[in-house]
């Protein structure tokens, strides 16, 4: 089964274009042996415990114009299908942000980046414009062991400090932050129920969403295979309804029944490979937390 990879995929060369202030900041931190990080205190200590030093907060971004248009032929909306160009655009925008973040980490001499987050910001300038931001904390192994990936670049991972420590202790290490996406158009006919009084499945709609999700997952998997991973942990599936472009402008209410819908599935996770752990893997202890926090986590206020 071959899945065409969007352009600008892994390995695509991106010119070194870090702004001057980025270089200054990174240079300053390197010279002063001074780190910045968005790790929580617990994460910071666990990363230290795992034998790594945080080097600095690194980020990359890309502002992209997304032109999503409901596909029509002869005035008729086309049947549900992937909007390949939009898929590629959204992938490329994220890839640009990730590559710039990687560049910053490289500049710091990092082994990898942990706690990577991929955010999308919508600004007030226009409906079709979105900013993609990748943020994380660059780390380096204190013992001088190289944890860089096969390409000699710093690895990227979406793992929290806690997960990073646990993963290393249980005999795995991260090799890359992997992504897959798919933008799908669902035509209005797919959203209209033949008989509104009956309970029934909207099978064309189901089919569209199913297809889109599977395509995104398949691409995620292909990307993980590319970096030689044995598995992906912490996979999240995000379903995003577009507010961009012509289709989005009419979104909400019954508009979808007139113009159709554009949906993006974005999946991401951290690719891992087995690595020998020097310490025995820890045994879980059961506790009843007395903290009055709904999530059950003990770390917050």
């Amino acid at each position, binding site marked *: 089964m071959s899945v065409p990879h969007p352009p600008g995929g892994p390995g695509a060369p991106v010119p070194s*274009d870090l*702004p*001057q*202030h*980025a270089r*200054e*900041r990174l240079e*300053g931190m390197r010279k*002063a*042996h*001074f*780190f*910045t*990080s*968005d*790790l*929580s*205190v*617990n994460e*910071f*200590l666990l990363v*230290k*415990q795992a034998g790594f030093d945080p080097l600095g*907060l690194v*980020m*990359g*971004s*890309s*502002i992209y*114009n*997304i*032109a999503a248009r409901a596909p029509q032929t002869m005035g008729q909306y086309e049947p549900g299908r992937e909007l390949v160009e*939009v898929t*590629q*655009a959204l992938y*490329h925008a994220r890839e640009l942000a990730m590559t*710039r973040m990687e560049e910053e980490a490289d500049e710091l001499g990092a082994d990898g980046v942990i706690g990577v987050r991929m955010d999308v910001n919508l*600004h007030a*300038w*226009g409906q*079709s*414009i979105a*900013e993609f931001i990748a*943020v994380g904390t660059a780390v380096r192994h204190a013992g001088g062991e190289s944890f860089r990936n096969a390409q000699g670049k710093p690895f990227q991972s979406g793992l929290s400090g806690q997960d990073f420590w*646990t993963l290393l202790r249980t005999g795995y290490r991260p090799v890359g932050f992997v992504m897959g996406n798919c933008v799908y158009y669902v035509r209005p006919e797919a959203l209209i129920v033949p008989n509104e009084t009956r309970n029934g499945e909207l099978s064309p709609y189901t089919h569209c969403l199913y297809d889109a999700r599977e395509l995104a997952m398949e691409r995620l998997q292909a990307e993980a295979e590319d970096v030689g991973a044995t598995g992906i942990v912490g996979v999240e599936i995000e379903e995003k309804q577009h507010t961009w472009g012509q289709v989005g402008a009419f979104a909400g209410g019954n508009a979808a029944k007139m113009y159709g819908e554009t949906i993006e599935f974005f999946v991401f996770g951290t690719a891992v490979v087995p690595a020998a752990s020097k310490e025995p893997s*820890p*045994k*879980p*202890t*059961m*506790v*009843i*937390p007395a903290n*009055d926090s709904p999530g*059950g*986590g*003990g*770390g*917050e*206020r």
Partner: protein
Amino acid sequence: MSPQPVVARPQLALSDLSVTEFLTLSRMGFLPHGLVVGSAVFDAGWTNLSGRTQEVRSLSQAMRAARTAAVLRMRQQAAKLNAEGVVGVRLQVEHHRWRGGHQVAKIIALGTAIAYDTEHAPHDMKGAPTLHLADGRPFTSALSGQDFVTLLRAGYRPISLAVGCCVYELNGYGVYPYAQAGRNDEIAEYTQALFDARESAMERMTQDLFAEFGLAGAHAAAGHPDAPVGVVGMSVSEAAHAGMRNVIEYTAVGTAVAHVRDGDPRRAASPPAPAIVVPLDR
């Protein structure tokens, strides 16, 4: 470093600590001395915007000055309450349009002042050195009570809230060619601008720290006694400045930390061993 004297504590001390925070702090010997607030209101309007994509230096400087003033006033209040430092500091910004349409920005720094109380301290930690900065000022930090104690046990003490700002203007017409052509493409001008703004905010945060406390790391021996080794819990937030959609404001906030003073008994002999636990509360 001489052991701390018992400091005068207000009869009734306000705090915005949660129950868990209060218990964690008080078991370690830290008691709240009061809720401390500092604020600064400044003029954020009538700036000559150029229409070009570039930094609005006057606004960047104004925001920096306002935040510094708010934190300074909060620190002074903490000093008056005999506190060693402030935990859980939050920086809030409110933009108001006052009568006559004039824009003002109000900055509030809010936290809980705490101090070490040798009478309440655990037995083996009574002789702990002070956490005041070398010049006698109280420290400031955005750390929760738990984070503060965890850091101290691990051998770090908070020094100061670290803040950096950058306000950037974007050319409002920069997006038109893209929107009209209906192209899927990167808007390089904006990417560069916001990238630059974010980096500037972070760079200024570290520069201000270096300016106040000097360099850390290899230079620590010769440098300032409070030279920080890093910043933890950092975040970079962005907001439309004063509701102007083409003016974006970036603020980097974190807590600068340094190693604890020599012989501080609160530093655990070995770092706490992390354990994997299965919480049974759900």
